[in-house]
């Protein structure tokens, strides 16, 4: 492998670490298994998980944009 290729694989790996964030945020249950604060009548548990849908999409979009030239 050429050095530039090695570097691009490394860059890709660093950006991909961002994908781990939503995984931890939605699996560490003690962080969000509670009722308050509520949002428009929804307990925290529900709106927190729903909020991670667009947030995870955002992480994915950033990773896509930053690594698409390497892919």
């Amino acid at each position, binding site marked *: 492998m050429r050095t530039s290729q090695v570097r691009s694989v490394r860059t890709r790996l660093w950006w991909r670490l961002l994908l781990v964030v939503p*995984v931890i945020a939605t699996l560490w249950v003690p962080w969000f298994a509670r009722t308050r604060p509520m949002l428009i009548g929804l307990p925290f548990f529900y709106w927190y998980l729903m909020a991670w849908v667009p947030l995870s999409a955002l992480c994915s979009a950033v990773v896509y944009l930053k690594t698409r030239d390497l*892919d």
Partner: protein
Amino acid sequence: MPHAALIVFLSLFVLVTPLGFVAARWRSADLNQLQEWGLGGRRFGTLVTWFLLGGDMYTAYTFVALPALVFGAGAIGFFALPYTIIAYPLVFVVLPRLWRVAHKHNYITGADFVRGRYDSPMLGLLVAITGILATMPYIALQLVGIEVVVAALGVPSAGWVGDLPLIIAFVVLAAYTYTSGLRAPALIAVVKDLLIYVTVIVAVIVIPAELGGYGRIFAAVPAERIMLARPPPGSLGSYSAFATLALGSAVALFAYPHVLTGALSARDPKTLTRNMALLPSYSLALGLIALLGFMALAAGVAKVPQYAGYFRQYSNNFAVPALFMRSFPGWFTGVAFAGIAIGALVPAAIMSIAAANLWTRSVYREYLRPGCSDAEEARQAKLVSLVVKFGALLFAIGLPTTFAINLQLLGGIWIIQTVPALVFGLYTRWCHRRALALGWLAGMAMGTWMEAGLGFKGAVYPLRLFGVIVPTYIALITLAVNVAVVVVLTVLLRALGVEEGGDRTVPADYEPAA
């Protein structure tokens, strides 16, 4: 009221059917080639892939069973949300590698790849059989979705007349899958998704307004169902059950044949990574659909006398249809129900194509007719797609629904056992092919035994780890056992000098062309 609903339902159904046949001419190509019939020629762009994968993974069963779970069990049912959130990053980092190597070697299925990578028809066969076994009950369950809405529309459900709508739907489905291959569900998925999105958006605006807002809805739900129970001392309780169900389902998703079929039909790897950011829009819809379970609870649908018979027959799966009938005018109920029914046909078509591809490549071409022509291969796949669907139909009509549900539960545990061969194989050839086969066997046997031990009531096993009880999704426990067997036996078999076999791929096949 049922009349307006029935008319709209039937009209939408009739309108969609020609689409399935017209699809054969869409980006027309020689459908006597398996990669044209079974993968749409690997030419689907970002938008079609979005519709196809969305139509594929969010099945009618999801739309009926998920709110039913929330309706009956509450917060734990929401594991589906983290499941779909974490599935995309996991899956889409891995899938472009599979896409590249599959494109290079004309692999149609995951089993094809495993066979080439490990130079082992037997390992390919194991992956193929697991895929077919896990897919059959899944197709049968799609029929439950159709069954429930058809019954709700007032069609008598007893005797052969009751089975007639299912039979008609499946004959139509079988006919256009046969003629058009993967192009048919790809085109119909567009209609299905539009209907589902319209239904979900209307439902989450109209129904909460009717019920007095989300505050009122949650006030009507028993407190113990709103929140996961706090774990008792010495146990991780529902917390670990929730997290492992989500993680295990996400890992298993990768190995499902219908997901791989959808992914391999994309035009290029970028189409897949782009979809990683676009597909969560379905997860949002999924979260809202799960909330419908609470709305049904707050609306008290189970206490409505005229629904009592349906609840007896379909139990909680009737919660969402009941909620729609109670809250929507007849014609819109028809739209919503058509969304669910057409939503059953799309994944059923993709699953039957995926199973047919597996059979044709890993059994027929490998063992029964080596050296058959390409046209013969495609013809076999078309025929098998019919067999698979009629098998599923008999399954749905002849056996109690609980049987299909139990098998689908097992299917998730079974399919995850093919992950080591598939995923490790994409990154390294270190694992020994015999070790992978024996790891698979250990995982399959142990998973089936544990699930049977639970009497098919759920899939969470109270694992004891260092004196703490950790309720864990069986799929994850057995995957860990599988991997441990693979690692230990690889070292052992290599030390003993057992024949490793070759590798038809080279490292450059997996990486983007520099």
